[in-house]
């Protein structure tokens, strides 16, 4: 392992037209670490992920992945190394493609042979039985779809996974299964995660450190232990934490 952090973001700014959605954001994620970003809607947390993934090119500042500064147009090597899982399992799979098509596509793009073995491996790793291989998305449940989306991200054997609210559209029992799967995969493959979520308990469960964002700024960076001890320093983080505990009368 090099001493470079897996992800280094420095003074990131993102604007759409006259809307400044991310302001002077800096953070770094060590290799093998799981890093959470929490915030309410409009905090810019998902935008950060899309910029990191190369889906959004309206940014300034600097982004380095494993020591390499990233241009706005990413190359193929970048895409092999950094993959993403989206929030909505109903929208992130092509409705007219079978599981097999979906998993074969990244292999075809990168000209990787041995598709049979790779697809089989990816499916078994995410716990999808082989009988699901030729199903269409409409023949899968939400949790199964999200497993396909994770398998699609893994099939290129990346070292960094960007997770955009991967379980917020799922039932709690399915959420538990998917979170367990993500934890196990990280351990097995020594993956680096950035997990964006609005759910503090999920972030505390999955991540070692987290960043609280509000109105496009990083408000506070803290460890999961600090969060569990309910000891954030800023008022906003404190407020989020209180709100997440549920309703209080009086």
């Amino acid at each position: 392992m090099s001493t470079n952090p897996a992800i280094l973001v420095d003074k990131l700014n993102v604007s759409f037209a006259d809307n400044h959605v991310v302001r002077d954001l800096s953070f770094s994620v060590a290799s093998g670490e799981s890093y959470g970003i929490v915030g309410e809607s409009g905090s810019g947390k998902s935008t950060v992920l899309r910029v990191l993934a190369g889906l959004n090119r309206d940014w300034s500042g600097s982004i380095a992945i494993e020591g390499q500064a990233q241009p706005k147009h990413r190359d193929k090597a970048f895409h092999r190394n950094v993959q993403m899982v989206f929030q909505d399992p109903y929208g992130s799979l092509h409705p007219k493609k079978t599981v097999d098509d979906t998993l074969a596509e990244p292999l075809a793009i990168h000209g990787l042979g041995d598709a049979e073995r790779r697809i089989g491996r990816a499916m078994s790793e995410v716990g999808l039985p082989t009988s699901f291989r030729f199903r269409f998305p409409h023949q899968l449940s939400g949790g199964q779809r999200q497993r396909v989306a994770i398998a699609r991200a893994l099939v290129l054997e990346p070292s960094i996974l960007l997770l955009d609210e991967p379980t917020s559209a799922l039932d709690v029992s399915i959420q538990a299964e998917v979170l367990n799967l993500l934890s196990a995969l990280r351990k097995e493959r020594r993956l680096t995660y950035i997990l964006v979520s609005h759910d503090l308990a999920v972030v505390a469960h999955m991540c070692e450190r987290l960043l609280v964002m509000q109105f496009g700024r990083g408000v506070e960076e803290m460890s999961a232990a600090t969060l569990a001890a309910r000891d954030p320093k800023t008022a906003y983080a404190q407020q989020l934490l209180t709100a997440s505990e549920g309703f209080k009368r009086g």
Partner: protein
Amino acid sequence: MSDTTTARTGWHDWLITNEPASRRQARLGQTYRQWLAFRRNPAAMIGLAIVLLLLLVAAFAPLIAPHDPIAQALDQRLLPPSATYWFGTDSLGRDIFSRVVYGTRVTLVIVLLVVVTVGPIGLLIGCAAGYLGGWVDVVLMRITDVFLAFPRLVLALAFVAALGPGLENAVIAIAFTAWPPYARVARAETLVIRNADYIAAVRLQGASQWRIVWKHVVPMCMPSLIVRSTLDMAGIILTAAGLGFLGLGAQPPIPEWGAMISAGREQIFDQWWVATFPGIAICVVALGFNLLGDGLRDVMDAR
């Protein structure tokens, strides 16, 4: 549900299974499911029957037609419908029934040629404009607007006038005027599709723009275009008939329905059958394609 290991028998079960064993079975199963849904729609089934009938009649025209469609018999002019001449004869003594039967071939050729040329052109222009955006979009869509600005028949007339009358030129003219709506539809769909997460996911895999458009956007636009072209066939048939009526489409003695109506217009009050039967044929076929298109829309566009 995944632990049913008992061997399934019968096509139905093989097609409807939730665990297809191959790509082919999955695709066939998908189509079969759509067919099951389609079958429940009586109007669509009538449309399908009419279109199938059209295909059969065209294929077996020589067997069905009792007379030669272009053989003239001047002593048999303008006879009313009878046992020998089911639909009567026209002013040159030709059997109208046989001409209507052979006319299905002309109609089918026009429809197929137009659809084969128009569908892909509209699809590619629309998807490229929608996905690539920017100046590509602006240029392609302004060209589309120019074509859309003229009424279809008038534009087709202008093309035929420039190219000269004839069946091939009529097809080219209709094709030229028919693609813009297809491009519009494809572009509108693409604008929605390109923001979908599954497109973002392929972009993230490093796919080239052409690959994304061709392999991921186009398949999503296909159903609505198939539906649109089926619905459009009625219009194409009517435009072809219109050109034929004006003498700018198929040239005599080719038995084209529009031209046949045109030929019968002088006798419409005295020998009604000359213009009526080809007219009914046009109506029925146009209706058939419309019903079929409606049925397909219900099945394929259901999201």
